[in-house]
């Protein structure tokens, strides 16, 4: 192979590899990127059960129910308008509690209950889950007492 051709060949291989990387990334992103929803946008988007998504909002007061095994809980996440039931099995994050902000990773079950694989709670002023940073929690906090029977 002539030297000049060799450099060209290497350049072509490199470009092809990068295009390949882009294609791999695009196809994996299409399948695996999970979108963030609040209960209101979740209803609007009509998400199909089984697709990985994240759900964020406030934990509604009085909604936390702990299971008999000591490690399962269900609770309701709500935003200003709607609410969504969530089931989780595991150790809840340290600052998880009624009225706290939460982001849940998981998927909708066939019964429309959101099954969370992991929970991320609002830690403190410096550590807010990214998705919750611009949601006005005070509004949700104000509405919740009037909505809870």
């Amino acid at each position: 192979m002539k030297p000049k051709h060799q450099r060209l060949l290497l350049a072509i291989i490199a470009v092809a590899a990068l295009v390949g990387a882009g294609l791999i990334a695009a196809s994996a992103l299409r399948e695996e990127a999970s979108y963030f929803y609040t209960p209101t946008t979740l209803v609007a988007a009509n998400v199909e059960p089984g697709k990985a998504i994240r759900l964020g909002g406030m934990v509604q007061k009085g909604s936390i129910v702990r299971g008999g095994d000591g490690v399962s809980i269900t609770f309701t996440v709500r935003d200003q308008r709607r609410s969504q039931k969530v089931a989780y099995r595991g150790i809840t994050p340290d600052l998880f509690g009624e009225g706290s902000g939460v982001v849940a990773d998981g998927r909708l079950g066939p019964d429309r209950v959101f099954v969370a694989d992991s929970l991320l709670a609002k830690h403190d002023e410096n550590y807010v889950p990214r998705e919750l940073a611009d949601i006005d929690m005070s509004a949700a906090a104000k509405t919740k007492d009037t909505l809870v029977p």
Partner: protein
Amino acid sequence: MIAEAGLAAIWLAASMALLQFIAGLTLLRDGAGQLVPLIKPAAYMQGALCTFAFFALMWLFYISDLSVLLVANNSHIDKPLIFKLAGTWGNHEGSMLLWVTILSVSGAAIAFLEKRIEVKTLSATLAVQGFLALGFFAFLLFSSNPFERMVPAPIEGAGLNPLLQDVGLAFHPPTLYFGYVGLSIAFSFAVGALLTNQVGPAFARAMRPWVLGAWIFLTIGIAAGSYWAYYELGWGGWWFWDPVENASLMPWLAATALLHSVSVLATRNALRAWTIMLALVAFAMSMAGTFLVRSGILTSVHAFAVDPERGSFILALMLMYTGLAFVIFALRIGTVKQGEPFQLLSREGGIVANNIFLSVILAVILIGTLYPIAAEALGDKISVGPPYFNKATVPIAVLLMLALLVGPLLRWRRDDLGRLKYWLIGAAAILLLSCLAIWKFAPQIGIFPLLGIALSLALAVAAWMPLRGRKLLRTPIPVFGMVIAHFGLAVSVFGMAAESGFSSETLTALAPGESAKVAGWEVKLNDVNPVVGDNWVAVEGEMIAAKNGNEFPLHPQSRQFFKPPMQTSEAALLTRWNGQLYVVIAQPDQEGDGRWQVRLWWKPFVTFIWGGAILIALGGAIALLGRMVRRTKNSAINKWQTE
């Protein structure tokens, strides 16, 4: 007073960097210049001044001078001494000061040590290095002044994030910074060589120790960060594909590729443009890492403060440096002559394969890391997590491992697979037999853990093959380094595959006196006691783990910190040769029925992950030392001959 002296030292150091840069410009314009002899002394001064500023800040943390804003915000008079000192870089401003200090000291070290390349290239390299430092000095002085005073001084200070109050912190960030900065030196060499038309083996030999050193530090830093996340977060995972983790992995991938291609350039004088490009990419990735971590665009324990001004500043620096570098690359690469030719089936070809696979993995991770940020800018909230990264990177890693079974055995320039046919058959047999064996005994295991174990077994043998047929005493030391590093990769991949394929987990709630089982272990909760530490209180489980009649005590804790208020889990780890028992206890159930949430994991061979990483770094260190020894020997011989 000390704070003001430290600030003055930063200003002076910045002026030294400016001098280096201007002198370098005159050199390029005229080919000489009266300022050029000043470049080296300026580099020494810059290193000394930065070191002074850094120790001044450390002193302020040591005496807890709360009239300094940074100390007041990050320290607390009750904090243990080691964390007071580590607090120097456990915050945004201090960590950026550490960054430039390492950069400046490395510049001084090049000026002092590097004698292989031409004076002109060295001067250009130092000028580029000064230009880089200048940007970071501007960043420190205009938007991240570590010595800013606070009036009036508070009485006790705000404290350090408890997650960061850990011995791991004492060396995790500095280690990564040594790595990032080492790559910036490689970048300066690459641009310096491009500008002065000296892209060749001599330049590659000068650059190689910096790449190797950076790569060793990055390897250790990533492994340490991974282990820290594993035991400190209490989630039982060792890699979360968190953007911050990716920020350290991407420069490592680029550095690994560069490390291999720079060896080709040094020994075979091939892959010239390729190596320069990788050096630019490696540094761009370090900058991107710094940007992602420090800008506050991501929320994590690493993002100390969310401040858009700083984020834009680092982004601007990153775009300017990498943009300029790529422009110089485009303009000058035509002048770099084609290197020595080689056939595709050769050691060079194998290293090209290594570079391609590593670059593809890097690109896939970069896209996955930046995509959510870009989407958010467009108004979509998307998260890209482990499913994406595992799916997109693991298959390419499998190809990389396959290439690694053969690549190091190939000859330079050209080779013939017929020569290696017995080894190829042997490797295929190991792969096939181990796949069948695992599949027979553990059919539930996923495809990737299965392939991972089979490939790591084959690689554990393949790694040693380059020593076959060699006289061991006459083998160059760097070859041993390569062998150990590749073997370390096999060990590490074995640990990853075994952990992800065979971990077992039990999640339950126990009252004192009850027990739970995981993977043949019986773990009994005897009691739960309150414990008090320096600046926290905790509940501590008193547990006994039993297997085959042997009993081991375990004491997991759930800690409550006060400054700032936060809870952390201290997992209890029981290490056996074939894995770890990982036990976490949570705060009591709010119902108060007297039970405690307990999570148990048995993680087979999980310690191999970090053990392998240590071997990889050790291989790098052996190669580095081997080259240094040889260089000293050669220069001694030269000296003797000239005398």
